[in-house]
């Protein structure tokens, strides 16, 4: 063996006294396979890291802009690292519009919707998953098909209805509908409830527990992960919702963050750093929530993809 033979560098090889030609070929094939594997991994990570950078650029750009002093905003090529970092953009964005009011309005509307969505949808899902009654399957099919109805078809008559009730410019049209079952969440929860073993429930029934008790004290506690998924989806949806607050709310003191941001932009000659600071503040809760609860996002998708 020549010392230049790469096989020799393998310590396992040094201890073997006899190298047959066949083994050497075998090793070469193994090495080729390993090289191919390494090349594949390098390619994979290059693509993964490259795509990640591209996907993160918009958010990094938002944060970078939100921290820039005015003289570094409109430059080409752009400056990525603001110098100095101007935190006051955030306080200015917070105070030029009543951002604190927007936040508390949004928190109120969003949290009541989360509670309402969970109660309404879990009750209906329990009925679909656990109770037997005539018409159940037909109603379930009807519910699934309503998921295909574009929201905009029902928007105008619903608006007229709330107008006739005198509910415009109040939070009621943004909260009351939330307490009725949401078809998508009902479907998700029903899928999850179906997977809960019946034995516990049967035992409780023999002990004389009512249906409401079984729902509240057996099914709901066991379904916490699915309820968390619904809560997160509902949070993201209502936090970001624009169209409903836009058509119902007219007083600035009642605005949510989404409507407030549009007003912020339309209001006056706004600086891009302030606007990106406001956008960052609007997105931050969602991003933080996502960071801590990723598995519930994924679980929701898996559930909705499962056949029942």
């Amino acid at each position, binding site marked *: 063996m020549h010392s230049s033979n790469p096989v020799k560098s393998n310590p396992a090889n040094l201890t073997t006294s006899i190298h047959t030609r066949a083994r050497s070929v075998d090793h070469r094939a193994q090495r080729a396979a390993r090289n191919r594997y390494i090349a594949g991994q390098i390619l994979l990570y290059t693509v993964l890291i490259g795509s990640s950078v591209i996907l993160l650029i918009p958010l990094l750009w938002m944060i970078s802009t939100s921290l820039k002093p005015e003289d570094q905003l409109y430059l080409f090529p752009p400056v990525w690292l603001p110098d100095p970092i101007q935190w006051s953009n955030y306080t200015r964005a917070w105070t030029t519009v009543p951002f604190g009011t927007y936040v508390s309005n949004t928190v109120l509307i969003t949290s009541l919707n989360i509670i309402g969505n969970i109660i309404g949808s879990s009750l209906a899902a329990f009925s679909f998953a656990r109770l037997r009654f005539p018409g159940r399957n037909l109603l379930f099919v009807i519910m699934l098909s309503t998921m295909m109805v574009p929201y905009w078809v029902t928007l105008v008559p619903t608006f007229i209805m709330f107008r006739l009730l005198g509910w415009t410019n109040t939070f009621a049209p943004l909260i009351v509908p939330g307490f009725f079952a949401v078809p998508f969440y009902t479907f998700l929860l029903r899928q999850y409830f179906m997977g809960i073993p019946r034995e516990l429930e049967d035992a409780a029934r023999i002990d004389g527990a009512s*249906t409401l008790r079984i729902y509240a004290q057996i099914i709901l506690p066991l379904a916490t992960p699915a309820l968390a998924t619904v809560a997160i989806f509902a949070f993201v949806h209502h936090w970001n919702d624009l169209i409903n607050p836009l058509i119902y709310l007219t007083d600035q003191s009642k605005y949510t963050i989404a409507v407030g941001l549009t007003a912020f932009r339309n209001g006056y000659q706004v600086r891009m750093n302030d606007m990106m600071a406001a956008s960052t503040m609007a997105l931050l809760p969602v991003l933080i929530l996502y960071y801590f609860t990723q598995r519930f996002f994924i679980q929701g998708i898996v559930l909705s993809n499962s056949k029942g």
Partner: protein
Amino acid sequence: MTVRHMSIARRETIEGYLFLLPWILGFLFFTAGPIIASFAISLTDWQIGLPSKFIGLGNYNRIFTGDKLFWQSLKVTGVYALMALPSGIIVALGMALLLNQKARGINLFRTIFYLPAVTSGVAVALLWAWIFNNQFGVLNWLLSKVGVQGPAWLLDTQWALPAFALMSLWGAGGLMIIYLSSLQAIPVELYEAAKIDGANPIRRMLHITLPMLTPTILFNLVTGLIGVFQTFTAAWIMTKGGPNYATYFYVLHIYNNAFAGTRFGYASALAWVLFLIVLILTAAVLRSSQYWVFYAGEKE
């Protein structure tokens, strides 16, 4: 015994409907009721503050024969669907195949790829309007790095709609997760059997992976179609439908008639036309599925 059995069944029926009440009432008040009301209103000429007047199919007649903006909004939405839906499916599928690899740290990449999908709404639209800025936007800076002079994007009638499609691709991670969960549900034995039969990776992709994913592609196509016809926030924030109606999505036309013009009758007719379009397109896609969607074994 029979009497007792009957009463249990009846009790369960009553309880079943009671528990279902949140959905039944919601369905009546916020889905079925409004759909029917919408149709009734669409037969009237009704503006806020004025009494409504029955005009039969007059609104529909005007939509199809006298409303250039209706056709423009339909064209914009259709062209956008043709751009955004196929590219979205391809990009999401590519991401899913990439993230389905066994590699160290793959979960971190999944987190990053899915991240844009959880962000949406006004803040994201404002951000992208800034990204697309023709003079100082980061997109044209990136393009200049590879020697391309970027277009004016949202200010250019040719490029405004592609800009929206590009923005939608950023959120392809939402679809990606659905593909990923379907990919992971494909039985490994199929691949092993194909390997033994000497099928190379490309053939395994074409003859196992893709057919097994067709039900998911169908699902994404249908939900994507419904979603495209409801594109509002991004358009309303970034362009308000401009320039020169180049991004005048269908629901902007509904919004302008209903809430800017308070022409409730006409807006309701537009909403009903939207309903029928989505219904027909969905039915067409579902019908076409028998030719290209593969259902493994019909196990259930």
